[in-house]
C-alpha cells in the first residue's frame, strides 16, 4: 500500500509553473529522494505535501486519506526544515515535546516519550539544554526528534544535511539513513546532491523544471537514464551528435565521432540522436583502434580522468589508472563496457 500518493499535482507561482502534472507513489516504509537542480520545484513539492502551499490541481493522498484541501495541522507530516527551525526560546525537551500536546498526555507520559525519541537520536539527557547551545549536528538531530515525536505518517526532510560542514555531513548522512531505516518510517527527502540521494534513498525521483524526469533506483537512473537530462545530471558524461545505424535486441548501434557505439535508448534506424557517453564506455588500450590526443587531465583519487580529443575533433572522457599519459600525448582507446545512451528528441541540457 502506498503511504504517499501524488496524483497530477500542479503548482503555479504567478506565471511560473513550478510543479507540472507531477505524479508519484511512495510505498510504506520507503525512502524516496526528490533530486534536482535548484529551481526544479523539489522544495515546493515537499511544501505541497506538508500543506504549507496549496496545490493548483491534482490530489495528495497520505495513508489513504485525501488531504489535498486540509491544512498542515491535519496532515500529520513530520517535517525537518532546512535550517531546522528549532524554537530558540524553548529547550530541547520543549522543542521535542511541542507536537505532543494534542495527545493529552500527562507530564510523565510526555517526559517518557521525549526521552524515547531523544534516545533514538542519541541525545539522551539533553532535555534541559537550550537549543541555541547545541552544535549543528545536534540541532539537526533535535529537529529530527521533534518531527518524529508525534509519530507522523510520513517524514519530510528538506535538504537536511546542507547546513552541516562537509566533514560532519557524511557521518550524519550515515546516521540519518540508519535511523530512518530502523524506525521504518516512510520518508521523502529533498536534496540537490546526487551522492546524498544515492546513499540514503531507496528510489530517486529526478525533477527538472517542475517535471518528473525519471523515478527509479539509483542504479536504474545511472544505467538506464530516460532522458538526456538524467544522463547529464547523474554521473559524468559527454554528449556527441550521432546517428542510429540499426537496432540490435534491446540496444542500438549508433555512429558518432567515426565510432560505432552500443547504446541504450529508443530510436529508429537512420534517426539523428544525441549520444551521452560515460567515461567507462571507453578504456585506454595500446592496441585500441580509436586514436586521439590528451588535452586535459583531472586527478580523482584512485584514478585520473583524461579528456581526449579524437582525430575528427570530438572530445570524450576516459578513466586511466596510471599517471601516464601526460597532456599532449597521443593515446589509443578501445570500447569497454556499457555506458552510452542515445536520446532522440531531447534538447541539449
Amino acid at each position, binding site marked *: 500500500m502506498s503511504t504517499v500518493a501524488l496524483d497530477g499535482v500542479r503548482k503555479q507561482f504567478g506565471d511560473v509553473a513550478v510543479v507540472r502534472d507531477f505524479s508519484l507513489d511512495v510505498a510504506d516504509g520507503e525512502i524516496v529522494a526528490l533530486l534536482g537542480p535548484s529551481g526544479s520545484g523539489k522544495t515546493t513539492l515537499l511544501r505541497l505535501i506538508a500543506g504549507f502551499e496549496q496545490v493548483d490541481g491534482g490530489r495528495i493522498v497520505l495513508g489513504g486519506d485525501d488531504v489535498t484541501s486540509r491544512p498542515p495541522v491535519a496532515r500529520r507530516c513530520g517535517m525537518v*526544515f532546512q535550517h531546522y527551525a528549532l524554537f530558540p526560546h524553548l529547550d530541547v525537551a520543549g522543542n521535542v515535546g511541542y507536537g505532543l500536546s494534542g495527545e493529552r498526555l500527562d507530564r510523565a507520559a510526555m517526559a517518557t516519550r521525549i526521552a524515547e525519541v531523544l534516545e533514538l537520536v542519541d541525545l539522551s539527557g539533553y532535555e534541559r539544554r537550550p537549543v541555541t547551545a547545541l552544535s549543528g549536528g545536534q540541532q539537526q538531530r533535535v529537529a529530527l526528534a521533534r518531527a518524529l515525536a508525534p509519530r507522523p505518517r510520513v517524514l519530510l526532510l528538506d535538504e537536511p544535511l546542507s547546513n552541516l560542514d562537509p566533514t560532519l555531513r557524511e557521518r550524519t548522512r550515515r546516521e540519518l539513513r540508519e535511523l530512518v531505516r530502523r524506525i521504518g518510517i516512510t520518508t521523502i527527502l529533498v536534496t540537490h546532491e546526487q551522492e546524498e540521494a544515492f546513499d540514503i534513498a531507496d528510489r530517486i525521483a529526478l525533477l527538472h523544471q517542475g517535471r518528473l524526469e525519471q523515478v527509479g533506483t539509483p542504479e536504474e537512473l545511472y544505467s538506464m537514464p530516460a532522458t538526456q537530462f538524467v544522463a547529464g545530471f547523474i554521473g559524468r558524461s559527454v554528449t556527441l551528435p550521432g546517428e542510429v545505424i540499426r537496432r540490435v535486441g534491446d540496444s542500438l548501434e549508433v555512429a558518432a565521432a567515426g565510432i560505432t557505439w552500443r547504446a541504450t535508448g529508443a530510436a529508429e534506424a537512420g534517426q539523428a540522436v544525441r549520444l551521452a557517453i560515460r567515461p567507462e564506455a571507453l578504456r585506454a588500450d595500446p592496441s585500441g583502434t580509436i586514436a586521439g590526443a590528451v588535452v586535459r587531465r583531472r586527478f580523482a583519487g584512485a584514478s585520473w580522468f583524461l579528456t581526449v580529443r579524437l582525430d575528427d575533433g570530438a572530445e570524450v572522457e576516459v578513466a586511466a589508472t596510471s599517471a601516464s599519459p601526460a597532456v599532449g600525448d597521443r593515446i589509443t582507446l578501445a570500447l569497454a563496457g556499457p555506458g552510452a545512451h542515445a536520446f532522440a528528441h531531447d534538447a541539449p541540457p
Partner: protein
Amino acid sequence: MRRVLQLFLLLVLAWIVVEPLAIVGVESVRRDGAWTLDAVRAFAVEPNEWRAAWNSTWLAALSVITGTMIGVPLALVTRLAGFPGRRVVSALLALPAVLPPLVGVVAFLFLYGESGVFSRGIMALTGSEVAPWRFEGGGAVLLIHATTMYVYPYLLVRAALATFDTSLIEAATALGAGRVRTMRTIVLPLLRPAIGNGALLIALTSLASFSAPYVFGGGFRVLPTQLITTRLNGDVSVAMVETLVLVALALFCLGAATRLGGPGVRGAGKGLAPAPAASRKGWRRSLTAVGVAAITVWLLLPHLALLGVSFVAPGAWTRTALPTAWTGGNYVALIAEPERWRPFGTSLWMAGLAAAAAAVLALLVAVAARDPRHRLSRGLEVALGLPWAVPGTVYAIALATMFSVTQPAAGRFILIGTLWLLPLAYLVRALPIIGRAVVAAIRALDPAYDEAAAALGAGRWRTFRTITLPLLMPALAGATALGFVTGLGDFMTSVILYTYDTRPVSLEILGAIRQGELGIAAAYGVVITLLSTAAFVLAERSRGAA
C-alpha cells in the same frame, strides 16, 4: 591616531552631554557655596512634589499598557493578515512616530478640545451654549499618550516580524499547533524583546512628555511640568532635585527593561519574513480591512482635524459646529508676512545648524567607536545615548544651568540669553538619534571593503572618503533628516531656553492659539508635519537601502 580621536571625542561628549547633568546633581545639594540637603528636604515634605512624581509614574505605567495594547495587535494584523489596503494602512499607522509632540497635542485640541470639532458639534446639536466637557486632566493626557505612543511597539514589532523566520511558524503548524497556540507559544515569546523595547520607549517618552500635560494637564501636574513651575518660582535647587527624581525614574525604567528583556533571543533573526496570509474566507478579509481602517481613522483623526483647521478662514469658526468659510490664506500668510515667517526661519536655521553639527560629531564618533569590543568605544556609545534616556526638559535645565556662569576651566561660558544656547540644546537632542543610526550603520559595513581599499593602496583618508563615507551616506542622510525635524518641532527644550531672538515655531503655534488664530496655528502644524513625514520617509528609505 584612533586613540587620540577617541579621547578627543570623549572630552567633547563629556563637555556637552555629561557635565550639564553632573552640574545639576551638584547644584541640588548646594546653596550659597555650601553643601546642604535643604532642597531635598523641601521636596520631601511637599505633597505636591510627591503627587507630581506619582502622577508621572502611573501615567507612564498606563501609557505603556494602553499603547502596547494598541500597537502590538496592529503590528501583528498589518504584517500577518492579508487584506485590501494593507500597505497604505501600515504606512499611515507609522506616521505619529515623527510628529512633533506639540503638533500632535494641538491636533487633539482641535478635535477633542472644549472648542474642538466634537465639542462644537454636540453644542450645535443640543443648542447648548456650554461646552459638554473639558478635555483636561490625567485622562486626557493618557488618551493622547496611548494614541500617539502606540507607534513604538507597532514599529518595533513590525521590524521584528520582518526578520521573523517563517519556518518556525510552519514547524509549529506541522506539529499540530493551531493559530492561537502558535501565536501564544512561538510568535509572542519571540517578539518579547521587540515588545519590551517598545514598552521601554513608551515609558521614557511618557516620563519626558511635556507638551500634552502642559496644554491639557490643567491641575494635573507631572514632573516635567512641575519642574517648569518650580523654576519659574525661582526655587532652583528644588527644581534640580525634581530633575534628579525624573532622571532616576527614567534610569529605573531603562534598568527594568534591560532586566526583563533578557538577552535577545538569537536564531529568530534569519530566514524569510512571513508573507501575509490572506484568509480564505472573503468576509473575514473584508472585516479585517474595515476594522483596521476604522482604528487607523480613529488614530489619525486629530491630524485630519489639524489639516481641516489649517484651511479655516480667520473668524469663520466661532459659534458653528463646522467653519463657515475656507481659505488657503493661512499658508500664504506664513510666507508672506515677515512676523509669521520669522519664527519659522529661526527654527529652520537653528535645527539645520544643530543637525549638521550633530551629524559631523556623530560621524566622528562612529569612526572612532567602530570596534564594539574596545573599552573607549563603549564609553563613547554610552555618552552618545545618554540624551536619549534623559528627558528633554531635564537637558534644557541642565544646559541652562551649565552655561549661566563663566568658568573657562570647567568649560562653562555664558550662553544663556544668546543665540547659541537653543541650537546647542537641539544638537544634544539630535545626537543620539543620528549617532545611534550611524554607529549601527558603520558596524554593519563589511570590514573587507576597507581592507580591499587598503590592499589597493588607498590610505586611511582616501578609504574613508571614497569607500566608508559613500556607504554610510544613506544612513547618515536619513538620520540627519530625523534629527533636523526633531529640532524643528521641538517644544519642551525651547520653552525653557528661547529668547526673543530665537523664538521658535512651536512657541509661535501656542501664541497663535492664545490669540485665537487657529488657522495659522494649524497651518504651522501641517507644514511641520509634512517636513517631518518627508524626513521619516527618507530615513526609512535609507534604512531599506542599507
